[in-house]
């Protein structure tokens, strides 16, 4: 009974370790699920007002990328793997989409097919926009799941139907599902309409303007390096001072990933420190109780040694008992912790919402390593009392009570 009360310390330690680690993992899952499908070697560029007067221009100038920038990069920068310019349909706000009596307000983008390789989308029905759509300036569109819900009746097949978007008719060629939660340009990804970039430039009178573009770096090139290189080129092409840090807005997934990764590494480290700390307190408790047990059994140990038990045998017994105690307690803690996480997982799944806290679980490796830690802790907890036990001479031990 006393032993089990003490072992509770170990139980609690391992329980905490499992729960915290599971929770940390869940947070990591939740956050990383949203970005995982994003190409980690991607960077994004947009324009801001200049902040440095340069080449006769005042500061605060508005400027824009155009098709020649894209062409120049395609031809001259070999580090670029995919390049996808984009137009935002900001001008078409309000109920911009009409189909018969149905109207809706959706985000519209003009994109290249390469975009689907950077920020992954999968077609649920139909197909994605392709190169032929771009070359032919076809009036076709891919629509998100929410668009289907709003613009079509439940039993209607949207493929082949037409939507009037800001006054122009587009044929729906695909219903698409976003694999990531990051949406550049804001809004919900389910409420997105994507049309070919070239069509958008013509149909809505954008000329050769490019609002935004995404790139991914070739294998072996760091996307941060590519980002800097492209910025230098673009500044040159648009008469912007190289020291102007504001004029080109950019965003680099790799950097964000590193940030996330180190954050979760930090959480994991904290988990282990706290968990191991609690465990250590438990182990010290076990070690303590072993000392008491040995004190009580001094005579018994003395007899055993008098009739031929070697110190190794005694140590083995004590350590075995200590390991048994810790591992039992730890195992219960481990199972209970995993059980609680499992229940939590069920509850979260029932909730159905996509939370930033998802699928809490501990890996097998985690379980095994904590079990290893337990065995080790048990040995350590047993060794000190065992050493103490054999340091008492057999005669003293036997005489203890006489």
């Amino acid at each position, binding site marked *: 009974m006393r032993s089990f009360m003490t072992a509770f310390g170990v139980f609690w330690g391992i329980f905490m370790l499992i729960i915290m680690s599971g929770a940390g993992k869940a947070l990591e899952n939740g956050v990383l699920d949203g970005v995982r499908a994003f190409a980690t070697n991607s960077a994004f560029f947009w324009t801001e007002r200049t902040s440095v007067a340069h080449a006769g221009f005042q500061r605060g100038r508005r400027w824009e990328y155009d098709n020649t920038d894209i062409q120049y990069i395609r031809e001259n920068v070999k580090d670029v793997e995919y390049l996808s310019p984009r137009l935002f349909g900001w001008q078409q706000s309000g109920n911009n989409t009409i189909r018969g009596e149905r109207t809706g307000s959706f985000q519209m983008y003009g994109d290249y097919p390469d975009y689907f390789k950077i920020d992954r989308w999968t077609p649920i029905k139909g197909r994605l926009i392709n190169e032929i759509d771009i070359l032919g300036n076809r009036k076709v569109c891919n629509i998100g799941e929410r668009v289907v819900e709003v613009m079509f009746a439940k039993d209607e097949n949207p493929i082949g139907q037409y939507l009037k978007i800001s006054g122009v008719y587009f044929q729906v060629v695909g219903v698409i599902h976003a694999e990531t939660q990051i949406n550049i340009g804001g809004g919900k990804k389910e409420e997105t309409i994507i049309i070919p970039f070239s069509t958008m430039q013509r149909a809505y009178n954008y000329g050769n303007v490019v609002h935004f573009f995404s790139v991914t770096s070739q294998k072996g090139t760091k996307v941060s390096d590519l980002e800097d290189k492209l910025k230098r080129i673009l500044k040159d092409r648009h008469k912007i001072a190289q020291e102007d840090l504001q004029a080109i807005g950019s965003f680099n997934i790799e950097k964000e990933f590193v940030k996330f990764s180190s954050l979760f590494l930090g959480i994991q480290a904290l988990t282990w420190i706290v968990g191991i700390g609690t465990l250590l307190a438990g182990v010290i408790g076990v070690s303590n109780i072993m000392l008491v047990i040995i004190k009580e059994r001094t*005579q*018994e140990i*003395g*007899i*055993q*040694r*008098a*009739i*031929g*038990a*070697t*110190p*190794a*045998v005694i140590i083995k017994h004590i350590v075995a008992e200590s390991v048994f105690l810790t591992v039992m307690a730890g195992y219960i803690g481990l199972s209970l912790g995993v059980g609680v996480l499992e229940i939590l997982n069920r509850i979260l799944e029932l909730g159905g919402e996509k939370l930033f806290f998802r699928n809490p679980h501990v890996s097998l490796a985690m379980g095994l390593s904590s079990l290893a830690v337990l065995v080790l802790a048990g040995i350590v907890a047993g060794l000190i009392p065992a050493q103490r036990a*054999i340091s008492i*001479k*057999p*005669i003293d031990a*036997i005489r203890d*009570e*006489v």
Partner: protein
Amino acid sequence: MIRLNNIHKSYEMGNNSLHVLKGIDLHIEQGDFVSIMGSSGSGKSTLLNILGMLDNYDTGTYHLAGNLIANMSEKKSAQLRNEMVGFVFQSFNLISFKNAMENVALPLYYKGVPRKKRNQIAMEYLEKLGLKEWASHMPNEMSGGQKQRVAIARALISKPKIILADEPTGALDSATSYEVMNILKEINQEGITVIIVTHEHDIAAMTSQIIRLNDGLIHEIIRNGELKKFQKEFIHGLEPA
């Protein structure tokens, strides 16, 4: 068999040093039945512990069956104890949560004898000591005499050359004491050296050699013929037993 040469032993008690054995010379042959007597503090238990390799001595030499016993590792002395010596204690020192048979079998466990075999041997020894029916009883269910017989069985099971008994009758009434002494005598007749520490003259008188310790030195050794006289002096009414 046992040869002690000028054995000294002192204990550190804080700052004081207690000189317990002040030069013991002793020679015990195989098959002797020896009792060590002396007032308390005369060093008799210490001598027994040294004989049983439970304690170290400071200076001198101790040969057991031709081996010099000095500075042995715990492991080596534990093994030697297991092979050579059987212990019988005043307070029996059975392990309370093991039954009689398991207690008897314990030394064989340390020798690595498999369970079935050692339990079988343990049963043989219990039978020999008339405790067969008590094999599955726990120590606290047995009388003092029975416990001591279990302890003797335990001491015998490893087939030792020497039985060392520290006040084996100290906690027993006189009838049981004689019973135990008779068992020890029988053991001795099988050729095993028996050494007992006692302060009871009638018990000592049943042995064939009495070593009287006084103040850490051997005061006198009474043997054979002289023992007769000793017996006369101290044994009154021993004959009926």
